[in-house]
């Protein structure tokens, strides 16, 4: 079984990985314990879960201008997600993904990506062509 999901062209190289999905938003500054690599804000849907080497699938990005540096800092320590998929990215986190060379795509043609993809799905993300493939569920 394989499902192809079209999205807007995005940032970074082709990657494969396992999805971690939540119908919540993402702030590098306020939602994460960046040292431990887990979601730390108690109210967050993924509180306590590790995002390291996962393909995060979330609604939108929040947070101020400082978060543009943070993905690069996280990736340099090997404590970053493999890729991030949003319904709608914000400008700052997209700029941060470009610096970090961390794959990021958004705007899925078939609707809400947080329902199209489930936690545990194996994905291939191809930002240049705007394609995400669910290879196994």
């Amino acid at each position, binding site marked *: 079984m394989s499902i192809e999901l079209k999205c807007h062209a995005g940032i970074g190289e082709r990657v494969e990985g396992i999805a971690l999905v939540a119908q919540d938003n993402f702030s590098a500054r306020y939602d994460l314990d960046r040292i431990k690599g887990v979601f730390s804000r108690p109210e967050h849907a993924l509180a306590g879960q590790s995002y390291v080497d996962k393909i995060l699938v979330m609604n939108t990005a929040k947070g101020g201008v400082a*978060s543009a*540096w*943070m993905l*690069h800092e996280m990736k340099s320590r090997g404590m970053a997600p493999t890729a991030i998929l949003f319904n709608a990215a914000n400008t700052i986190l997209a700029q941060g993904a*470009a610096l970090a060379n961390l794959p990021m795509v958004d705007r899925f043609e078939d609707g809400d990506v947080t329902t199209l993809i489930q936690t545990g799905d194996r994905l291939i993300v191809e930002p240049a062509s705007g394609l995400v493939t669910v290879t196994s569920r």
Partner: protein
Amino acid sequence: MQLNSELEAMLAGESGRARQWAVEHQLQVGRMFDAPDMVRVSQAHMMADAESIGIPGVEFMEGLAALPVEERRVAIPMITDPRGVDLDYYDPLGQTEDMANIERRFIAACRAMGILMTNTCINYQTVMPPVLGDHVAYGDTGVVIYSNSICGARSNFEGGPSALAAGLTGYTPRYGLHLDECRRATRRFVVSEQPQGLTDWGVLGAVIGRKAGSYWEVPVVEGIERVPTSDEAKHMGAAMASYGSTPLFHIVGVTPECESLCDVDAECLEAEPITRDDLNALRSSFGAHGEKVDVVVFAAPQLSLVEMQRVADLCRDKHRHPDTDVLVCTAASVYVDAKSAGFIDTIEAFGARVLQGTCFYQQYAREIGEANGWTRLLSNSTKIVNILGGYGYRPALASMENCVASAVAGKVVA
């Protein structure tokens, strides 16, 4: 995305590795946001506090700074947002030598690239305000919203790496606020209660930002009967951007792109009232009447010379409570003027500390809060009380007058 011959040459590496990286970065971002081409910018402003860049960010900058001088120099005037450490005053705050060393290395790298270390989030009051129609690449959401809205300049929120790329190329991808169609109003708010004082303007901005709630929404505000001062507009904008990720607002009859509703295509938008209840609901979420105050903070944005004078006037011949610390953050250029005017001495005789080139929430707020045992924080900045809840504080909001009175009493007075 269309590149002119100058940018094509940079992309090919003909102007060195730094500019090649910069164009590659801008292409990635521009494609994501469907930019048709690049637009020339007159200034860049970079947010890069030590807490967010970390050692990897410093090493990245040092890599660029080590290139030959003609490759590493920025192409346009480029300035910086507040730093995370005031190198004249960090140990007493509980900041470490490691934190200070990140700053020292970063400053050295910036200087080698020709970046002006202004360390300010009020560059539109202190350095060189942009003019109507001026395309710029600014970081700091408060700087961007003020410059777009009050000055009529054109900037997206440019995170540090993107501002740096713009500084190196002299261009930025033409998307978002650089385009006429993204500057038209999408929400129309009607104010019936006139704001009085900086905090009221901040609260109004916060309520509008929360209702608008997205980078791609542009609020237009009707019913404002008095032109706000630069400081009032600064607090309104900083709060709106903080609560709503809002990069631009218009005020009918006040801001330069909006003499009337039709200038921003807003005649047909539904008019949404901003009620007294809306304003009071926001204020009451930051009320703490009678509670002990650990620290009073004047920052976010940094204080202008006029605000420094008001703080000094309020502090004169008084002293803070021994259990309540007071911090005031301003730009180094304002500090010099405030020093010669006697304001710094007056504020410090009160028992407060004036920090230069930092802004409280960008200077390891969590770590210094833990080091000093600060949880209950009081400020007149609607922006800062929004942010610091995420950093382990219990923030409260009061006017500048009541903040000083609370510092004297050691508890929140209203």
